[in-house]
């Protein structure tokens, strides 16, 4: 028995030793600038690197404070704490497999910290070569992406559809009479050069990772968007229209301004599929009531405004929040309205609320999202230029100002229709509004958590009342906006509704 116990104790000690076993030594940081030694430690299957030494090797500085450490590399400031496996840089998370450790007063982070840091702040990749103890820092490599190009003319709009074998990063550069799609990855091109018989497009030329699109005239402008499954880049070309007197300045990175006014409206029925949203005390699901109401609203708006009205979903399906806004951007919508039913802990809460995006949430994410979706319309080719960033800030502020007016019109009409005390217009960082490159609002029609409102929301009469109020709000905002830009209001076009199918890409030439 004693021998057994002794053996057990030895085994426990051995296991503990394996878990706690720590090896350390000198490793090499290998970067385009050369080799630098640093100290590493291996423990419990993780490799930690001396943060002080690696930061110094990268030309940065590290400063301790009472809550952890701040690192400054180039213009980026990152932070990490002693116990958290999350660090931050520019408000982005840096995820580590385990928290950092401290050895003799110095911080050691898992090597993946630097992988995350440089991925978010540079075009550098970091890998750990465990066999040779090398932390390898090199320019990010990209796999070869196959590109197929097709050209079509759909209702007077020339389209180029680039179908990719895998998602790829790219920028679009504009010059006089030509556009260039520049991929970050090496590409496998379908041809070197091809002449095109099209009113707007003269020739396509692939060279390196560039596709150069030669146009037939210098006043042709392009607009671009991405589609998924399969990954595609679509470029629409049309002649630029002469500016309308009194028109608001064109928004950088936004939809083309040659067709002013509210012509396309995207209506977003909240939730759907497995995301049921809020559920009322009697079991009414938010996703069902938003869809029913939005179908009626789409029909009413098409009939009364003459605008093209698009639903982000016309069935009980799950659509991601990003997809909803991206769809509005792809359709070059002039207005975006997300429709929801509210819920509160207090069962007596009632009335409508209208939200638009808070400025804090609108800045960087919106810029990132819209830059990729509207790259062609950007006023300058260099995506990092300060001018572009300033213009973006102005553009986002303009969208917010317009969103505020739109939200105000909605709230006033909803209050008048329901007779409920004004719950007011509010700002919040709602995900579905982030990245919309048009005035956008989210309306909470009523409180599904209130038994009385839940019953009303199911009735046709109340739904019609709300649809009428929302229709009047859109009409009011449309008239107000078009008056302010000095636009002569066109005669209503034939009404049309559409569902969330992507814009037509036409036939392949």
């Amino acid at each position: 028995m004693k021998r057994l116990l002794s053996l057990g104790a030895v085994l426990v000690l051995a296991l503990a030793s394996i878990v706690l076993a720590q090896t350390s030594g000198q490793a090499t940081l290998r970067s385009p600038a050369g080799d630098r030694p640093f100290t590493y430690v291996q423990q419990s299957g993780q490799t930690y690197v001396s943060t002080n030494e690696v930061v110094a090797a990268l030309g940065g500085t590290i400063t301790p404070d009472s809550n952890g450490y701040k690192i400054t590399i180039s213009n980026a400031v990152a932070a990490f704490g002693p116990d958290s496996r999350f660090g931050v840089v520019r408000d982005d998370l840096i995820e580590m497999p385990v928290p950092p450790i401290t050895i003799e007063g110095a911080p050691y982070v898992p090597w993946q910290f630097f992988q995350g840091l440089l991925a978010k702040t540079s075009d550098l990749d970091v890998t750990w070569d465990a066999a040779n103890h090398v932390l390898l820092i090199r320019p990010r490599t990209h796999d070869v992406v196959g590109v197929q190009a097709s050209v079509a003319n759909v209702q007077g709009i020339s389209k180029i559809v680039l179908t990719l074998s895998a998602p790829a990063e790219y920028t679009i550069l504009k010059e006089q009479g030509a556009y260039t799609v520049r991929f970050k990855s090496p590409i496998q091109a379908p041809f070197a050069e091809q002449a095109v018989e099209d009113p707007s497009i003269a020739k396509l030329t692939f060279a390196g990772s560039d596709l150069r699109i030669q146009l037939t005239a210098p006043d042709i402008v392009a607009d671009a968007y991405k589609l998924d499954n399969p990954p595609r880049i679509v470029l629409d070309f049309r002649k630029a229209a002469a500016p309308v007197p009194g028109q608001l300045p064109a928004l950088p990175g936004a939809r083309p301004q040659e067709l002013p006014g509210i012509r396309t409206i995207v209506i977003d029925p909240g939730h759907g599929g497995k995301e049921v949203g809020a559920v009322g005390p009697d079991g009414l699901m938010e996703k069902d009531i938003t869809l029913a109401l939005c179908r009626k609203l789409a029909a009413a708006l098409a009939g009364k405004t003459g605008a093209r009205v698009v639903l982000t979903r016309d069935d009980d399906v799950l659509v991601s929040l990003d997809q909803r806004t991206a769809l509005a951007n792809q359709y070059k919508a002039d207005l975006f309205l997300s429709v929801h039913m509210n819920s509160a802990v207090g069962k007596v809460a009632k009335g409508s609320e209208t939200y638009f995006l808070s400025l804090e949430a609108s800045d960087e994410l919106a810029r990132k999202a819209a830059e990729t979706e509207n790259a062609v319309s950007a006023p300058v080719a260099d995506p990092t230029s300060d001018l572009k960033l300033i213009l973006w800030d102005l553009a986002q502020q303009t969208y917010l100002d317009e969103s505020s007016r739109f939200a105000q019109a909605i709230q006033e009409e909803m209050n008048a229709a329901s007779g409920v005390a004004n719950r007011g217009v509010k700002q919040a960082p709602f995900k579905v509004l982030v990245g919309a490159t048009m005035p956008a609002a989210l309306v909470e029609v009523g409180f599904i958590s209130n038994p009385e409102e839940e019953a009303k929301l199911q009735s046709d009469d109340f739904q019609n009342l709300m649809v009428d109020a929302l229709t009047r709000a859109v009409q009011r905002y449309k008239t107000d906006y078009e008056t302010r830009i000095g636009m002569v209001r066109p005669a209503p076009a034939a009404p049309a509704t559409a569902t969330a199918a992507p814009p037509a890409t036409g036939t392949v030439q």
Partner: protein
Amino acid sequence: MVAILAIVACKKQSTATANVNAANKVAVRPVRLFYESPQMVLVSETRNIALPESPAAAIPVVIRELMKGPASAGAMRLFPADTVVRSAYLLPGGTVIVDLGGSTLTQGWGTGSHHELMAAYSLVETVTANFADARRVRFVVNGAPAETLAGHVSLAKSLSPIPQLVDPRFR
């Protein structure tokens, strides 16, 4: 075995609490916890709880106290009762990483914008009102970045206090 034991750490190493003494030193202190009032704005109640001296150690204690729900009449709990505070860390620069879990948040919290907004900001207000160094909260769920808590409020960036959500008497 000898070989294994030989590579056991020879350097002095710790799991790196920033200030062990401060973390272990506990004192009863008043904290402000934010809940929703019948007027549908955030109000605070003050509670005396035993707190570690170091903010890094005290923040998760305060958030767990928030999750216990209000004691004052009329105030309403905002987070689901089964919400678990997995961890909370204060980073240099004022970002607090709060990792939440629990079956409701894990399986999909079906609630409306108002409820979700007030829940998220009740935590933001509680953390920033009690700790001068805390300026914003970055939520993660079950140890991973999350899009939203319940389908509305974006968690892609840190959340800073929105004074308009708080009763002026409690700002």
